[in-house]
């Protein structure tokens, strides 16, 4: 599902990722473990086409990243959902609007959108906030909205960048259970974190350790 070989990336002349190679099969759950600044976010960004693949090879959900252009990138992104480290929720829109957005851009019918959004919001305990605007939510609540938006489309691959960073311990652990349950339905999950406790919560998961841009 994710196949990366000899991938390197630099911002200007600052080499951020060095010769990264790994493979994740369908339905696998993997942690990308590493300290802040080790290149986790950069790698996830390359994997959903937000940064160009300049050196090495990578295939995600059947798409060769080298062949991604602005005209076919949306096809990759319909297979790959992302939970962003900085959430990227639309502050002036309601929770419902934010979570419904990926379904809306796919042209999903209204009644199906309503059903799916309701189910996902319930699983993340956001059912009371459906019509609340996101700017009125706490950081943890916004993070859960970001997760809801990522999983509502039932993606083939889920990339999550420190999705529990703003949650207290209990909520963070509960969130890991949501990912785990979701993974059981066949979604490949790659989750960046620097918190070993989260890793311990998913004992069946693989761990890719990243340090200074290298998988070790």
């Amino acid at each position: 599902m994710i196949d990366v070989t000899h991938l390197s990336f630099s911002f200007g002349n600052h080499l951020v990722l060095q010769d990264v190679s790994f493979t994740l099969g369908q339905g696998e759950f993997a942690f990308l473990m590493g300290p802040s600044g080790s290149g986790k976010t950069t790698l996830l960004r390359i994997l959903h086409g937000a940064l160009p693949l300049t050196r090495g090879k990578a295939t995600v959900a059947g798409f060769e990243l080298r062949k991604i252009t602005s005209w076919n990138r949306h096809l990759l992104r319909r297979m790959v959902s992302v939970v962003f480290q900085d959430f990227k929720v639309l502050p002036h829109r309601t929770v419902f609007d934010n979570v419904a957005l990926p379904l809306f851009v796919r042209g999903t019918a209204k009644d199906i959108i309503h059903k799916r959004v309701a189910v996902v919001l319930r699983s993340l305990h956001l059912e009371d906030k459906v019509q609340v605007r996101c700017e009125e939510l706490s950081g943890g609540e916004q993070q859960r909205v970001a997760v809801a938006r990522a999983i509502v489309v039932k993606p083939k691959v889920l990339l999550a960048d420190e999705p529990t960073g703003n949650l207290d311990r209990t909520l963070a652990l509960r969130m890991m259970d949501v990912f785990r349950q979701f993974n059981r339905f066949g979604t490949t999950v790659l989750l960046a974190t620097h918190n070993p406790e989260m890793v311990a919560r998913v004992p069946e998961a693989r761990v890719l350790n990243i340090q200074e841009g290298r998988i070790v």
Partner: protein
Amino acid sequence: MMLVRLVSQGVRDIFRTPLSLATTVLSLTVVIFLGSSFLFVLYNLDRNIKASQGEVVFQIYWKPDAPKETVFQHWSSIGEMPGVISLETFTPLDALNKLKDRFSIEDNLSLETTLPYTALIYARVPEADPRAWMQAMHDRLLALPGVEQVHYDPLRVDGAASWFSWSKRLFIPVATVLLTLIALASGVAVRVTLAVKREELELLSLVGASPFFMRIPLVVGAATQGILASLIAISMLYGVHRYLQTMFQGTLFAFSFLPQSYIFICIGTVILFSILGSYISFRQF
């Protein structure tokens, strides 16, 4: 279904940011108004000069002793000459009555015998080599037996001829500059919209929106703003036109509004360049 949704979304989106909408429409309106005003002035000057050129007048005097029958014969033959639109004839009696009218002369002076037969010949001058045509016409009239003098104003013809070559040379560059201005204003308008919506567009792209999904509302929004601005500007110009019409009433200078084809070209250009502008600004996503 999806397309209808995107189009209506594009229209709704621009009203969500009223300030940006107002500034965009205002600047577009100013440019379109200026542009269409120039077109309007050019168009009317062109028309009026063409019209006056078409009515160049020859004044023809017969010798006072020319026999009545010859003159009447001339009057009917001049009317058939090529280019002649109409003929106004004056017998010495007509001329006398005219004089009387003009100067409110009551008593019956016997000027009849001293006044010649005269006529005003209204003729349309061909665009090609008007001077030569005028001269030929002059010579032809003068050659008629019994004709003493023929007058016309060659300056007026020169003026008309030089305006023709000027307006032909000026029209294309002026129109190009103005349409480019309209295009630039539309392009800037789209960029403003893009800047305002940047974050939202980026997110749409991240959650899998297709390029068309993101572009259609923008293009529709830009086109809507262009249409709004065009309508306001054209209405303003129409107001100016009505005002000028009443101001110049009774003079020879007749204003007529821009023909529909000009207006459609104007609005079409605004829309076309809005679309082009939004496409070009969009390459960053």
